[in-house]
C-alpha cells in the first residue's frame, strides 16, 4: 500500500475523499439471491412476455405506481426490489411518456442493489419504431448512471418469437445477485425454442467445461462458480502454475491439465483429455490472457506477438480443433464457447495497444463465429470485464487504479466472481438464445460504448 493509497483509505483521508465526492462504495448483492422488496411489473402496450417469464421464475409481481402528474408525486410506500418494464408493445414516441411515468416513482423508491429491467423487442419496423428502440438505449444508459446504492439497470432486446422459456435464464440472471456488476448494459435474446422450465440450481450438472488460465484470479473464480453450478471442470494453465492449478482442481473436484495454450497441439491435448473422460465437451471458457503493457511508441514486435498469440490466436487455433466434428473430445453440438474481451479492448486504453487489439479481436471473433455455429446450436459469446480486483489489476499504480476503480456507476471494482457468474449465465443450457453477444461486466464503466 503506498502512502497515497493510505491517505485515501485512512479516516481523515476518507473525510477528504467524501468531500471530493468519493464516498464509500455501495454494497452489492451477489449470488443466487432475489431482490428483497417487491418486484413491480409495468406493461406498456399489449406485450406479456415479461409477465409470463416472471411467472415461470415463480416470482409474484405487484402493480406499478404511475406518475400521472398529480401533486405530490405518487411514490411507493416500502422500497421496491425491482421494476420490470415490458415495452414489447411500445412503438411510438408518445408511449415513451408512459415509460417515464413508471420509471420516475421506481428510481425514487428502489432498494439498494435493486434492479430495473426493460424488456423490449429488437429494433425493427418503421422510422419511428426504430427511433424509439434506440431511445430506450439512451434511457437505459442514463438510468444506470443515476441509480444509487448499487442498483443496476439492464435493457433486454428479446426476439418477437421468443418464449418465456427462452428468456427465463436471462431475466433470472439479471434480477438475481449474480449480475451485481453488470450495469447499464443491453443485449439480445433470440428465440431458441427452449422448454418452459424455471431456473435450475445446478444448470451445468455433470457437464464438462474447460477453463483456461484457471490457476489464479478470474480463472480460478470461474472454475469455482461453474463447479458450484454442477460443472465438471477441466482446469488448464501453464505448467509452471501447476501447484496452484492442482489446488484449484482438487478444490472443485475437477481435473488439472498443465498446458501451454499457445503450443501447436494445445487443442488436441484438450480434446484428448476430455475424450478420456467419456463425456462430451460442453463448453470452453477461454480465460487465459496476458498483458505486456507499453505505450505504442515503445511496443516492439515481441510484446505485440506474445499478447496477440496468447489472448486471441491461441483460442482460435484451439476452437478450430475442438469444432472439427472429427475430433474425439471436441465440442458437442449445443455447446458453449466464451471468450474474455475487455473494456480496454472496447474503449481503448493507454499503453495497451497490443492488449486492446487482442481483446477487441475476441469481441469480433464471437460476433463472427456465432452465426456460423448457430446450425450446431453452439453459442459463442464474450464477457468484457471492466475493473476487476485481481492480481493483475493490483499492479496498476495506486492513483490510476483508484480512478479506474471508481470510474463506473457503482463506484467500485468488480470481483472475479462477478465475471464468473456472467459466464455461468451464458453457459446455462437455457441461454440458448444468447449468442454473438459481448456482455460487459464493468459496473457501467465511464469509458467506452
Amino acid at each position: 500500500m503506498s502512502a497515497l493509497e493510505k491517505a485515501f483509505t485512512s479516516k481523515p483521508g476518507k473525510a477528504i475523499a467524501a468531500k471530493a465526492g468519493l464516498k464509500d462504495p455501495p454494497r452489492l448483492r451477489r449470488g443466487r439471491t432475489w431482490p428483497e422488496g417487491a418486484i413491480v411489473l409495468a406493461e406498456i402496450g399489449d406485450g406479456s412476455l415479461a409477465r409470463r417469464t416472471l411467472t415461470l421464475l415463480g416470482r409474484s409481481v405487484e402493480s406499478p405506481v404511475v406518475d400521472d402528474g398529480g401533486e405530490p408525486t405518487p411514490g411507493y410506500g416500502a422500497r421496491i426490489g425491482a421494476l420490470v418494464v415490458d415495452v414489447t408493445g411500445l412503438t411510438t414516441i408518445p408511449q415513451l411518456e408512459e415509460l417515464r411515468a413508471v420509471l420516475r416513482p421506481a428510481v425514487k423508491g428502489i432498494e439498494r442493489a435493486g434492479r430495473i429491467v426493460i424488456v423490449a423487442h429488437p429494433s425493427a419496423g418503421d422510422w419511428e419504431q426504430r427511433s424509439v428502440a434506440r431511445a430506450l438505449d439512451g434511457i437505459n444508459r442514463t438510468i444506470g448512471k443515476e441509480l444509487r446504492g448499487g442498483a443496476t439497470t439492464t435493457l433486454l432486446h428479446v426476439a418477437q418469437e421468443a418464449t418465456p422459456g427462452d428468456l427465463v435464464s436471462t431475466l433470472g440472471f439479471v434480477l438475481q445477485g449474480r449480475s451485481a456488476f453488470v450495469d447499464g448494459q443491453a443485449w439480445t435474446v433470440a428465440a431458441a425454442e427452449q422448454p418452459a422450465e424455471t431456473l435450475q440450481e445446478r444448470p451445468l450438472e455433470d457437464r464438462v467445461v474447460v477453463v483456461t488460465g484457471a490457476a489464479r484470479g478470474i480463472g480460478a473464480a470461474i472454475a469455482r462458480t461453474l463447479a458450484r453450478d454442477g460443472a465438471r471442470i477441466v482446469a488448464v494453465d501453464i505448467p509452471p502454475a501447476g501447484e496452484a492449478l492442482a489446488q484449484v482442481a482438487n478444490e472443485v473436484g475437477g481435473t488439472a491439465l498443465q498446458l501451454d495454450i499457445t503450443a501447436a497441439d494445445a487443442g488436441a491435448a484438450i480434446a484428448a483429455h476430455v475424450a478420456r473422460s467419456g463425456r462430451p465437451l460442453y463448453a470452453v471458457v477461454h480465460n487465459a490472457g496476458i498483458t505486456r503493457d507499453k505505450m505504442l511508441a515503445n511496443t516492439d514486435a515481441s510484446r505485440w506477438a506474445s499478447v496477440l498469440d496468447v489472448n486471441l490466436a491461441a483460442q482460435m487455433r484451439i476452437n478450430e480443433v475442438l469444432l472439427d466434428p472429427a475430433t474425439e473430445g471436441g465440442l458437442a453440438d449445443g455447446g458453449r464457447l466464451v471468450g474474455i474481451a475487455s473494456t480496454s479492448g472496447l474503449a481503448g486504453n493507454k499503453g495497451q495497444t497490443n492488449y486492446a487489439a487482442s481483446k477487441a479481436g475476441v469481441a469480433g471473433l464471437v460476433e463472427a463465429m456465432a452465426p456460423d455455429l448457430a446450425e450446431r446450436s453452439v453459442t459463442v459469446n464474450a464477457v468484457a470485464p471492466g475493473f476487476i480486483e485481481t492480481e493483475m489489476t493490483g499492479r496498476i499504480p495506486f492513483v490510476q487504479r483508484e480512478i479506474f476503480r471508481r470510474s463506473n456507476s457503482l463506484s467500485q471494482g468488480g470481483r472475479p466472481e462477478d465475471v464468473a457468474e456472467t459466464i455461468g449465465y451464458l453457459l446455462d443450457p437455457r441461454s440458448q438464445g444468447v449468442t454473438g453477444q459481448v456482455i460487459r461486466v464493468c459496473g457501467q464503466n465511464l469509458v467506452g460504448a
Partner: protein
Amino acid sequence: MSHNAVVIGGNRIPFAKAGGPYAEASNHDLLTAALDGLVARFGLAGTRVGEVAGGAVLKHPKDFNLTREVVLSSALSPATPACDLQQACGTGLETTIYIANKIALGQIDVGISAGVDSASDAPITVSDGLKRALLRANRARSAAERAKALAGIRPRHLAPQAPGVAEPRTGLSMGEHQALTTERWGIGRTEQDELAAASHHHLAAAWDDGFFDDLVTPYLGVAKDAILRPDTSVEKLAKLKPAFGGPQGTMTAGNSTALSDGAATALLASEEWARENGMPVLARFVDAEVAAVDHPGGDDLLLGPVAATGRLLARQGLTPNDFALIEIHEAFASTVLATLKAWEDEDYCRGLGLDGAIGTLDRARLNVAGSSLAAGHPFAATGARIFPTLAKLLHERGPGSKGLISMCAAGGQGVVAILEAV
C-alpha cells in the same frame, strides 16, 4: 481372479539437490505435494482409492505411518488406506509391484504407488550407548539406580548419528562398492561421462518437448528438475576430480547421482476400472522379479538386477531385443555400464544360475528421456518416477511395445519389472 493391472499415469514434483530449494521440507510435505498433483491430474479429489503404498529410505521414527498421514493431508478421501514399504532404492518400484499385484489379484480396483526421500531432512539419531543408558534409567526402581544408569553415558554417546550410508556388513559406502565393481569390469572414465552427458541431454530434450507437462507438478516455486544441466558435455564432465576409487578413480560427482530431495507417485488400476472411469491406459504391468547377491561374500553390490533380469526374461521367454525401451536406474554411470557388460557375460550369467548370457542391448533404447544422473535420485522416489515415465514412453510408441525397468538397491538387491503398452 486375474485382472490386467494398468498404469494410468503418474505425478512427481521436480527433483532437487539435497540442501537446495526443498531443504526445509519433510518427507511428509514432499509426498503430499506429489500426491495432490496426481489427484488433481486425474480428478480424484474426495475419491476413496483402494490403497496407497509408499515409502522412504531415510525415515524419521515419527513417520512410522508416513503414507497414511500423507493421505490424510491430501485431497483424497480420508477413507483411503495406505501402507509403508521399504526396499532401499527399489522402494518406489516395489510399492508399484505391490499395488499392481493387488490389482491383478482383484483385491483392489485402483491404487497409488509412491516413494519419497529427503536427504536434506535425514533423521539424526542418538547413539546405541545413549539409548541403552536412557532405557536403563527409565527402568530403574530407585533414584540411585537411575543415577548409576545415567552415569554410564559417555561424551562419545552424545554425538548425533547421521543415517548410515555405508553397507552395514562391509562398512563400504555405495560409491566405494561401485568403485570396486567399476574396476573389476574395466569401465572407463570416458564411457561413464558419455552416459552422464546423454542422461542430461535426454532429460533436457524431454522437458523442452513438454514431455513432463503431465508427469510433474511444481512445488515451492520449483517448476523443473533442479539438478538438470542441459549444457553439460563430456568435455566439461572430464574436468571433474574423482570422487570414489582413489586418485586414479574414474567415478566423479558428475557421473554419480547427487543426494536428492523429491517424491513421485503412480496411479494404477484394473483395465476395467480405468475404462469405466474414463482414465487413460498407458501400459500393462506384465511381471516383476527381485534378486539379491552375496556382496558380503565379495559379489558386486549393485549388480543384483542382473540375476533378476535373467530370471524374469527366462520366465517370460523374452530377450533384450524384445524391448522397445529399457530403463536402467543410473545410481552411477558405471553401474549401468557394468550391468550391460554383465548381461553379455556368459560366465557371469551362468554363475548366477542362468542358462547363459542375457544378451546385448541396443543403446538407443536405453533411458531415452534421461534418468537419475540428470534428474537426481531421491532414493525411494526413483522407482515411482521411472514407472509412469516408461509407461508414457511406451504408449507413445504404440500398443504392444514392451519396456524393462532395472533398479539396483542397497543390500545387494535388484528389482526389475516389465511393462507393455496398451
